[in-house]
């Protein structure tokens, strides 16, 4: 059966465009809405694509869809922890989104993968073997949205030590920000 998508976004033109691109790529469009009105019907949707602003409403929907993809305007440090915590399977940057990326994202999340496109692929692939257990532990907590003080407390390290570990990891992974490092390890299934 064709995977069914539901598109919830506030602009009528963009919404219609997303539906059209999904249909062109062989998806079925189960429905569309603005600000979750009407709400997607439970059990009828494989992927719900929604504006990030609607995340609180999406979290209140019970089993509305199997997979979730957020449309975001920009990536900041708070975005990835927020999405990871909410178990959102992927996100798309609205301003530069093009049809092929939309389609690849939908196909990826339908088959159980994650689509976190913020970080460019590192030059050398990151594997579990390249990180120490200590670094993995810190990255896990970063992905949970913990701050340096919270990580230090949880692992009984000093804050200075946590900062050093994070710095080493980012250098090793050739990442510019903590968010990028988290995105890479999540995408590569290292944590």
């Amino acid at each position: 059966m064709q995977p069914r998508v539901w598109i919830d976004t506030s602009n009528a033109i963009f919404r219609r465009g997303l539906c059209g691109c999904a249909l062109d790529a062989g998806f079925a469009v189960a429905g569309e809405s603005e600000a979750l009105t009407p709400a997607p019907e439970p059990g009828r949707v494989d992927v719900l694509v929604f504006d990030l602003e609607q995340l609180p409403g999406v979290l209140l929907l019970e089993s509305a869809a199997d997979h979730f993809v957020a449309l975001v305007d920009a990536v900041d440090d708070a975005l990835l922890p927020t999405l990871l915590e909410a178990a959102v399977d992927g996100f798309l940057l609205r301003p530069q989104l093009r049809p092929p990326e939309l389609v690849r994202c939908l196909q990826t999340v339908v088959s159980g993968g994650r689509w976190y496109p913020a970080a460019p692929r590192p030059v050398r692939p990151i594997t579990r073997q390249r990180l120490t257990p200590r670094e993995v532990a810190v990255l896990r907590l970063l992905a949970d949205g913990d701050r340096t003080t919270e990580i230090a407390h949880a692992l009984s390290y000093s804050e200075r030590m946590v900062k050093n570990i994070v710095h080493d990891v980012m250098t090793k992974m050739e990442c510019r920000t903590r968010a990028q490092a988290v995105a890479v390890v999540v995408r590569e299934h290292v944590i």
Partner: protein
Amino acid sequence: MPRVLIVDFGAIARRGLLGFLDDAGIDVITASSREHVVTRLRETNADVVLLNLDADGAGEQAKQIADTFPELKVIACSSERPTMLVVPPHGAGSYTSPLTSARLQEEVGAL
């Protein structure tokens, strides 16, 4: 049936506009960029031009085009916010309107 020129939208928004206008049986032509819009308008004899309101200086460009082509209806619509700017033909006074599929089809179809 009106002929509509679509200018300078991203691929997804363009797909959406084509969908709406196709449903309404409207003939659509496109211009590759904002720079070509005046040339394309001269070539094609369009009745309506759809500009991208999210582009820099779009409101200004809409008014300039309306001045150059008094017979033309100019609509600038956003593909981010739910709003559009309409400049009717013959200097009838511009106005903004909420952007919904029905309003857009109505504005494009009603000349």
